[in-house]
């Protein structure tokens, strides 16, 4: 075990760590006498530091705050289409509407579709109010089921299923990697939280009570499904009121706008591969999130 060997082992560490401590570590290794345990510890510690580095951007206070806000907004986003679905379903059953609710008309009678959605919605609210661990476990199980548990769910309408999954996954991430919706409300501040809830409520009222399924006439984006429209309304409200002025706000915007990129097709003359849209989404998250400056302490 010589200096060259130890220097090679140091490659397990990130470059910034080697620059800061590399020579010092080599001297200490020489003084310690080396040995297989020292070598093994060196490699394990270096790799662990690299892994920690990979996760670091997502564990910053800005991302935790952004995910806390998402854990507050996601259940709201899940509630709106759920109420809309029930409302449209009742109208369909009573004969007021000739077809079932929107794109789900073909799946209206398939209990796993709306049943899983209802359970995920309940778990998201439960997780936010009572206990995050239970909510996380239930939503995770439901997401897994939605991916692998039913052929109908995974092959019938990729766009619809993606829609159905994105928000629960966001809710799951919000519950798992943040301090939860209470912190989200705290981060937003009362004026913004109230304004956001009001905008969402008014939008829902226009849609549900007045029968305007697309109050903003954004069908080009949303097709038969009003989620995008609602997501836009709420996201834009957050953005306009608070978003671009804060590091966490930009991250929230990135997380909520990203699902829109799953449906780029109407805006482009050529079909956009799903993977390209997903890649673009992640790029947006990174661009808006990682490059954002730290929010100044209040």
């Amino acid at each position, binding site marked *: 075990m010589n200096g060259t060997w130890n220097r090679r082992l140091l490659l397990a560490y990130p470059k910034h*760590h080697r620059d800061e401590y590399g020579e010092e570590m080599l001297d200490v290794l020489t003084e310690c006498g080396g040995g297989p345990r020292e070598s093994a510890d060196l490699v394990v510690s270096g790799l662990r530091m690299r892994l920690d580095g990979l996760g670091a951007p997502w564990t910053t206070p800005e991302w935790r705050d952004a995910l806390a806000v998402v854990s507050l907004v996601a259940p709201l986003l899940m509630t709106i289409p759920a109420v809309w679905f029930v409302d449209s379903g009742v109208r369909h059953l009573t004969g007021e509407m000739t077809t079932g609710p929107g794109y789900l008309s073909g799946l209206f009678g398939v209990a796993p579709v709306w049943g899983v959605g209802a359970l995920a919605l309940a778990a998201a609210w439960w997780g936010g109010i009572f206990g995050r661990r239970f909510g996380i476990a239930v939503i995770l199980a439901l997401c897994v089921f939605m991916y692998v548990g039913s052929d109908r769910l995974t092959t019938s309408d990729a766009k619809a299923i993606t829609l159905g999954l994105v928000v629960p996954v966001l809710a799951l991430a919000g519950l798992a990697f943040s301090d939860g919706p209470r912190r989200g409300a705290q981060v937003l501040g009362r004026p913004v939280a109230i304004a956001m809830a009001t905008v969402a409520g008014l939008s829902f009222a226009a849609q549900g009570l007045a029968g305007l399924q697309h109050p903003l006439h954004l069908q080009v984006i949303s097709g038969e499904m009003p989620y995008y429209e609602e997501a836009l309304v709420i996201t834009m409200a957050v953005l306009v009121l608070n978003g671009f002025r804060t590091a966490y706000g930009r991250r929230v915007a990135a997380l909520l706008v990203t699902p829109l990129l799953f449906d780029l097709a109407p805006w482009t003359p050529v079909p956009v591969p799903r993977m390209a849209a997903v890649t673009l989404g992640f790029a947006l998250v990174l661009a808006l999130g990682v490059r954002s400056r730290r929010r100044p302490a209040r």
Partner: protein
Amino acid sequence: MQEPTFLILTALAAGPQHGYGIITDAGEISEGRVRLRTGTLYTALDRLRGEGLIEVDREEVVDTRMRRYYRITAAGADALAAEVQRMRRGAETAALRLGAAGGLA
């Protein structure tokens, strides 16, 4: 607080030390039970510096080798004191219970 962190802060509580000095001191503090490895030590030192619990005291060149000395900060001393209190309370509780059971003279 993890044991390497406790040992490093305890070693530095007596005064600034360089890396190898911390390793030998930690061995003495733990009565030979724990042998800090170089990789573990410098991962911990980097983290503790990031958390503001220790800082660089000075750098010296000894026999063409650069030695960097680290010292504990006020925040580090507070964290160590809090850990000592926690351990003391735990030890007292254990002693009391052992005494009640007749297991501690």
